[in-house]
């Protein structure tokens, strides 16, 4: 089998992994702190790393995975030399920032890990490659191998795969919660220890300087959004994760336990989860503030921040000339960048609406929640007006049928009409009138 064929098969099997970032490792000229996208594929996702599998042979039989052992598909395996050379040559031409390597499990987890480590050692020591490397550990591999791998790569990750132990048992019978969480804990401990070592001795070898990440599949199992973000927030706190990635389940294999093959991937839901994820990491929102056991799923029409704002109107208005950064961050239309700019700019002069606009705040949303020098407190604003301004225009780009996924959320039982709406305007009108009453 020639290299072209191998690359095609192994890229095809790796593409469902969501993570493709190169942020966090600070080496001048190699990777910028914020990461660097080299291209964007037809699905609009960033291409930063050469994302491939070492092999798509697998002894496991995870129901949701294209590479499961009972799926009849073409199989291939890279030799470590081939893969190292391909990475180097792509990197030289500035096609990629580095390598993202995952693998199916051949023989046993330890054997597979050793193959992955072999590639990393070739790249780092033989080819002197100091670009970004993100490697997946294999659940069940021995702690020694995880440690060795961590010292070679920038980011290391273990996929949690599914949001609950129950689903894991059902859909990934060979993986256990313990086999996933034990390495995650080990990585967190090792990185913590490593940070202390580096503080004492600068030249101490770095253990996964860009931290660890994980990914879970959304929509293959019945968990609610509330369960998912609770889990994510617990993992951020407990295992010091840099990112949690959510991957809308795209049916590739038939199984009675999985959604049917013609099910559309829940892209809107995935989008809402990412929004909530950013709110938790960058805006200091807690999972409990965004959702609760009573409303366990996200509002499809409003993004989580607007939704929170409308339900907490007593918190507003916020005076942009006085409020703290944390308070500014709660205003829809003001993000971390504009909040920081407001803090600097207001030391050098009072802020009015014109200034705020130039600073980059989105007044369309922010105007209902702020006070500025030329923007006094409003007498009771019409709720319908606010909802109309805050409604997420993206919601209709994902297609009206996606909304039905949220059917079980109590606020939207009144909405079946939206499904039949002919035009977007009609759907917006419908949504506005329902939301204004319900919230």
């Amino acid at each position: 089998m020639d290299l072209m064929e191998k690359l095609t098969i192994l890229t095809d099997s790796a593409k469902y992994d969501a993570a493709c970032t190169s942020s966090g490792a600070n080496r001048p000229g190699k990777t910028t702190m914020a990461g660097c996208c080299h291209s964007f594929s037809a699905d609009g996702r960033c291409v930063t790393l050469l994302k491939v599998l070492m092999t798509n042979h697998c002894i496991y039989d995870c129901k949701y995975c294209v590479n499961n052992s009972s799926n009849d598909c073409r199989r291939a395996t890279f030799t470590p030399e081939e893969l190292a050379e391909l990475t180097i040559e792509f990197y030289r031409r500035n096609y990629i920032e580095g390598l993202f390597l995952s693998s199916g499990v051949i023989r046993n987890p330890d054997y597979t890990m050793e193959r992955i480590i072999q590639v990393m050692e070739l790249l780092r020591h033989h080819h002197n490659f100091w670009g970004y490397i993100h490697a997946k550990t294999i659940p069940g591999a021995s702690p020694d191998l995880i440690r060795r791998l961590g010292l070679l790569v920038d980011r290391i990750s273990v996929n949690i795969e599914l949001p609950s132990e129950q689903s894991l048992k059902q859909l990934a019978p060979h993986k256990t919660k313990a086999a996933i969480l034990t390495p995650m804990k080990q990585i967190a401990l090792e990185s913590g220890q490593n940070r202390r070592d580096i503080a004492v001795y600068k030249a101490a070898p770095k253990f996964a300087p860009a931290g660890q990440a994980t990914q879970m599949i959304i929509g293959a199992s019945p968990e609610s959004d509330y369960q998912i973000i609770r889990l994510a927030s617990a993992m951020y706190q407990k295992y010091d994760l840099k990112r949690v990635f959510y991957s809308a389940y795209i049916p590739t294999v038939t199984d009675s336990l999985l959604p049917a093959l013609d099910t559309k991937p829940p892209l809107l839901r995935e989008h809402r989860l990412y929004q909530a994820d950013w709110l938790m990491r960058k805006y200091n929102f807690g999972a409990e503030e965004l959702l609760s056991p009573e409303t366990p799923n996200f509002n499809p029409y409003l993004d989580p921040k607007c939704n929170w704002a409308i339900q907490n109107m007593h918190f507003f208005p916020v005076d942009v000339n006085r409020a703290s950064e944390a308070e500014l961050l709660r205003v829809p239309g003001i993000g971390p960048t504009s909040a920081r700019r407001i803090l600097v700019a207001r030391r050098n002069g009072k802020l009015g609406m014109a200034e705020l606009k130039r600073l980059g705040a989105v007044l369309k949303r922010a105007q209902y929640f702020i006070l500025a020098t030329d923007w006094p407190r409003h007498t009771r604003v019409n709720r319908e007006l606010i909802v109309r301004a805050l409604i997420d225009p993206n919601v209709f780009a994902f297609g009206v049928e996606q909304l039905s996924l949220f059917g079980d959320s109590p606020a939207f039982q009144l909405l079946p009409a939206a499904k039949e709406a002919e035009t977007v305007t009609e759907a917006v009108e419908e949504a506005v009138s329902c939301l204004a009453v319900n919230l």
Partner: protein
Amino acid sequence: MPGSKPLARPANVIFTYDGSFPGFLCCVFESVYTHQIPLEIMVEDQPPISLMEVRRISTDQDRAERVRVSISKKISPRTLELVTTVFFTCLEEKERKLLCFLLRAYREGGGLVWRMGDPEVSALLAAEKHLLGEAHLLKGFLRFTDAGNMLVSTITPKNFVLPFLARHFTLRYDKEQFLIFDQTHKAALLYQHGQAEFLQVDNIPEPTISPQEESYQALWKRFYNTIAIEGRENHRCRMTHMPKRYWKNMLEVRDLL
């Protein structure tokens, strides 16, 4: 000190200079010492068609250095950084806008650059952001072709980003030799034997492509076309992140144009 006498007043005169940054600093010098704000500041090679008085400002390195030091000392280092960056952008009438900003900043001090809501300042900050953003994108979107003895690349940016790419690429490929050709500004960054230099170049020859190079190009295209998930196709999203004006220099999407 707001309220004190302005450094210069508008006058019916046009300055021309050689287009270099020191040349521009000499225009600032001229403006401050004659108390005149010109109607326009133009580059010499585009002779103004006008009945106005045209004054040619010659570039004097000593004067330029005096202005440079004074910006950093009397206003703030951040102001100098902003002015230097904005000078390389494609902002319309950038010289006059920079001059007016500097004259104000000499009076109002280093705080002016932080008044980000001010219309004049925010225009400059937006231009700076445009340039730095374009430079950041190109760090990823730039594609090299291995022409045997050297890696070659062509870019067509709106802003003059080469000085902002130089550090990144010389550190990244410190053992290689490469040439980045900026077609818009007819300039090139040449790096060989550990030395980087900027050149004035009108054109570069098409690099010859070896079979090996061809096979890597084919592999990359195949990888790019395979990595997309069919069920999630989203061309609008791709175009937002990777505007079409970059596509003609990008191997994997060039054929889609």
